[in-house]
């Protein structure tokens, strides 16, 4: 059990959460809570895997996964933005729909064998950096590197560009944004779509890079929900979202790897000799998420930070309130 190998794999695992979390962050910043991340990720993972099998080209698989999950997210957008329905219930329904469709279309995919995966490579100079080079820049999937680029870009876009300003305005005070001539509805549709595409990318990251294959619901194993939780922990900030995602990724890897060796830190490894103690380890990511939620919520109260003011509220033109 080599710490560097675990962290290296943890970064790859965390990339899944990173895409899903930043996607959800965009949707929530525009004022739309989408609880359907798990369903959209499953659709993405299934689409990426089956399209790659059919075409032999993983890039087509990734694109179709993003498109499929993006389209699914538009159901939620229509129900909540146009029909003004409850975002929580609609998001739950989206999880059911996404899970059901991916299970039906993914039937038999688990026996489909191996597919062409996305390329992995080391970055020439950066890989030489001691420690960090081995963890972040050695033999990672190209999607991991895309994740490194996405994080600062998302932060810059939200905080330093006109488009990001509009996004925040729509999420914080849609009536004012509307009065300024922004199209609140179109903006929200767009960012829900962005969120869907990134959730699809997260799914594709699982099935084509991190844990290749299709294992029905277990493909995502609740990571979509963890991503929604991480958005709260991140206080709607992409940089914190990335940090949280990589920590979670490393934790997931550690839990997988800790049960392997017979000797752990010089002691007989209890998780090796009593395999069923391992189930307590598997609780950890979820227990940790609850803890993270507690920390995030307390911090929000203390610093008076918090969710975009209009999060979860449908915008009705000409009505008082937000």
């Amino acid at each position, binding site marked *: 059990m080599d710490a560097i190998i675990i962290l290296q794999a943890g970064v790859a695992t965390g990339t899944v959460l990173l895409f899903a979390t930043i996607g959800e962050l965009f949707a929530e910043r525009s004022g739309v809570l989408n*609880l359907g991340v798990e*369903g959209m990720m499953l659709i993405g993972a299934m689409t990426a895997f089956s399209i790659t099998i059919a075409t032999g080209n993983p890039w087509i698989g990734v694109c179709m996964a993003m498109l499929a999950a993006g389209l699914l997210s538009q*159901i939620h957008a229509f*129900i909540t933005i146009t*029909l*003004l*329905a*409850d975002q*929580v*219930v*609609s998001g*739950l*329904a*989206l*999880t*059911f*729909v*996404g*899970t*059901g*469709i991916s*299970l*039906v279309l993914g*039937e038999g995919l688990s026996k489909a064998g191996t597919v062409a995966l996305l390329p992995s490579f080391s970055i020439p100079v950066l890989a030489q950096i001691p420690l960090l080079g081995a963890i972040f820049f050695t033999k990672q999937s190209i999607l991991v590197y895309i994740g490194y680029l996405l994080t600062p870009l998302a932060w810059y876009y939200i905080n330093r560009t006109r488009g990001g300003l509009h996004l925040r305005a729509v999420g914080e005070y849609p009536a004012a944004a509307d009065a300024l001539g922004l199209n609140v509805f179109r903006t929200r549709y767009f960012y829900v779509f962005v969120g869907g595409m990134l959730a699809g990318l997260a799914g594709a990251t699982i099935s084509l890079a991190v844990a290749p294959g299709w294992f029905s*619901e*277990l493909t995502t194993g*609740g990571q979509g*929900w*963890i991503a*929604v*939780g991480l958005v*709260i922990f991140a206080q709607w900030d992409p940089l914190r979202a990335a940090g949280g995602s990589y920590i979670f990724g490393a934790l997931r890897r550690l839990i997988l790897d800790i049960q392997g060796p017979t000797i752990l830190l010089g002691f007989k490894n209890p998780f090796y000799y*009593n*395999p*069923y*103690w391992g*189930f*307590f380890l*598997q*609780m950890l*990511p*979820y*227990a940790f*998420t*609850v803890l993270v*939620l*507690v920390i995030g*919520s*307390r911090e*929000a*109260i203390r610093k008076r930070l918090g969710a975009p003011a209009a999060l979860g509220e449908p915008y009705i033109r000409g*009505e*008082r309130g937000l």
Partner: protein
Amino acid sequence: MKFSSHSEWFARLIDALLPVFAALAALAVGAVMLLLLKADPLEAYRALLEGAFGSTNAFAETLVKATPLLLVGLGICISFRGDVINIGGEGQMIVGAIFATWVGLTFTDWPGWLVISLSMLAGFLGGAIWGGIPGYLKAYLNVNEILSTVMMNAIAVQLMNFLLRGPMIDPSQAQLASKIPQTARLLELFRLPRLVPTRLHLGALIAVVLAILVYYLLWRTIWGYRIRAVGQNPHASRYAGIKVQHYVVLALLLGGAFSGLAGAVQVFGVNYRMITDGSASGFTGSAGFNGIVAALFGQLHPIWSIPASILFGALLVGANSMQRAVQVPSALVTALNGLVVVFVVSSEIWRRRRQRHRLSLAAEMTGPSDPNNLPIQAVQTDE
């Protein structure tokens, strides 16, 4: 009232029928999906209906599947009415079942009726604990209950996997190499009695009685009133002297308790032991989620949740016949359930529009009051 009682009656009828339209719309979309999968939708739905209602046994099976949906759904009615979104039905069912099974396997020399009653209570308690934790976190630490209940589901699954492979494993399995993760079988004395010569058991009757009790609780007791008040407007409730945090905890605690009971009933009425395939749905059959769908379909009303649960029980049972008849995976029903909710929640807008229309008519007559300012929730019909 100026508007005629006739049109009023018609509007209410349409409101009541909205879920039916929603279900039909979902089935229509399902038919398109079946066509895309190159299956004959009529043949598929015929097989589904026959599988669910075609014989006494089929109908009994539908009711057996509907029972946990109703029990979970009753908890959902309470939680959601209190504006607490409880997604933790799966975990609460599991913990309730663990508690109940422990009682059933421990007090083997006690009389049957006593052990059954204690087990059901233990299930209720287990679910209450598992729902109460996120309730406490929400009320006192401001933790989002949707996410914490989902996480509690995952934790409960691993707890079950641990117990059924470790301390609670069937002693006869513990000696075998295979070590199937299951508990010992309950004594025949401790099983919920069957009602007719089918698999239908007493749990179904318990669920219906409880539905009436939950109706009574929500609309005829001070606790129920306060849960609903807090759900509709926590600020006004606090101003009125209600201890909001207590009722947030109570709403999740009771919601969890009914799911826990559902888990207990599943063990004592159907399986007679706990067995795990490593996932939550392996034990619950996803009743913890489908119960939410049933309750939403029943408009979060305990009595209407009874027919709603039977409908979704029928879908679950019928899905297997459909799979056999047209070779379409039964997971299609998961998508159908989601679509039903999609259409139910989408149709809300029509109800709200009409309600607003009625309100503005009423306001014109009673004097100046901006109907846009009235919270929509506050005027929803309280039976």
